């Protein structure tokens, strides 16, 4: 037991010290694992499981550290992969991911400079819900009719659940907007 807690403690300390680029790589690896697992059959005991849109969690999380070329590149890349697997027009998910990334960056710099607990919880949730709404709008435009809401809602639930579990992995550890040298 002590060994496990010591291991977790050392991982936590390493994560706190790690640079944004390292955090981005770790987040990207988690995205790849979740994405590739989503390609396997998602039927458990005869029930089709909705697969979460992990890239939206990443966009909302990375966006809180402000705009950056690295996260933007990764989100566009994953967006194209999502387009292929979801039969969406190319660029659709990349646009949604990027829009949520930008919205998260703007909202964080406007409302969430001090990173209050309410914002920590509510802002990413709102961003993910906004992302899902965008997906629904774009899917309706692409299909020429209003698409079903049920798959979107079930995917939203799955994404929010995953967000609660893995959100810290998508924190780049950069706080924009505060003056340099001021500690929280």
């Amino acid at each position: 037991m002590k060994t496990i807690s010591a291991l977790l403690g050392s991982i936590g300390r390493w994560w706190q010290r790690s640079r944004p680029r390292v955090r981005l790589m770790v987040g990207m690896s988690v995205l790849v694992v979740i994405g590739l697992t989503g390609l396997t059959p998602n039927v458990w005991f005869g029930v089709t499981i909705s697969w979460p849109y992990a890239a939206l969690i990443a966009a909302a999380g990375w966006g809180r550290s402000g705009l950056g070329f690295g996260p933007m590149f990764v989100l566009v890349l994953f967006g194209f992969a999502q387009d292929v697997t979801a039969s969406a027009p190319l660029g659709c998910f990349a646009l949604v991911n990027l829009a949520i990334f930008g919205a998260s960056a703007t909202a964080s710099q406007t409302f969430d400079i001090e990173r209050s607990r309410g914002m920590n919880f509510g802002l990413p949730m709102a961003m993910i819900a906004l992302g899902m709404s965008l997906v629904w709008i774009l899917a309706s435009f692409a299909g020429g009719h209003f698409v079903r809401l049920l798959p979107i809602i079930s995917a939203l639930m799955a994404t929010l659940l995953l967000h609660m579990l893995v959100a810290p992995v998508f924190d780049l550890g950069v706080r924009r907007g505060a003056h340099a040298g001021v500690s929280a």
Partner: protein
Amino acid sequence: MPRYVGKGSRRRPLRRYGFFIAVAGLIALLLLQTSPRLSEQIEPVRTAASDQMFHMSKPSLIDRVTGASKRERRIFELETRVRELAQYEALALSMAERLEVYEDILNMQGEPAGAEVTARIMAEADGPFAEALLANAGRLNGVEEGYYAENDGGLVGRVVQVGKRSARILKITDFNSRVPVMGESSGLRAIMFGGRDGAGQLTDQPESGAFIDGERILTSGEGGMFPRGVVIGRVIGGGDEPRVELAMSRGQLSYVRLKPSARILPPEVDDTSPSAEAVTAAPSEAIE
């Protein structure tokens, strides 16, 4: 520890410009795809990407070393076999003998048989975009465009795009899917398309009359896209706007069976027949 970055960062405007350029580029890419010609040119890229996705979902090196992939492959083969047998055993026993007798009596030409493939569904089965499935069998497995897909419940859809190792199946639940169907008891014909609630909707009935509530809906075979008699579901509601509860939703969508459609080829021109001579003579006469 979090790294604090002031507002006066020099690189920030560059990032902002980059962000807006990327967003504008993606919107332009989406708008370009509204042109059918450009969209057609993008399709090969999408097919190639689907093939790559299939490669990535193959067993890892660790699985190969430990032999897990071999066991999985064996389990997969056995599961496929069991699924096939369960589906066909009862049906074959009860019908094969009778069918043979009927065909002899009617001197009927049977449906041409073709290669059938069981494929695993790789990508999402219930997405918000075109209701399509990505299966891990392609041209190398003998799958061709126009094959239809069945699960243990009934008809799932039709292969609309084939790569080397992957195929995209347009589900019958898609709004743009059109399936010629008929009622098993009433004999009425109609065209079925995917409704918003996941059930099928019937339209374009050539005959007057109403479908019977609860009757089975089968493919009518018209148009040659699907063979006649594949189970689609049951009528619910009846009346003016009958809907179809799809049988495929009772089955599981992890695996589908891809089967060739009964494509009827146009009659060959016989050189010796008088009509063929007339056909071949006609162009020369026209020139004269």
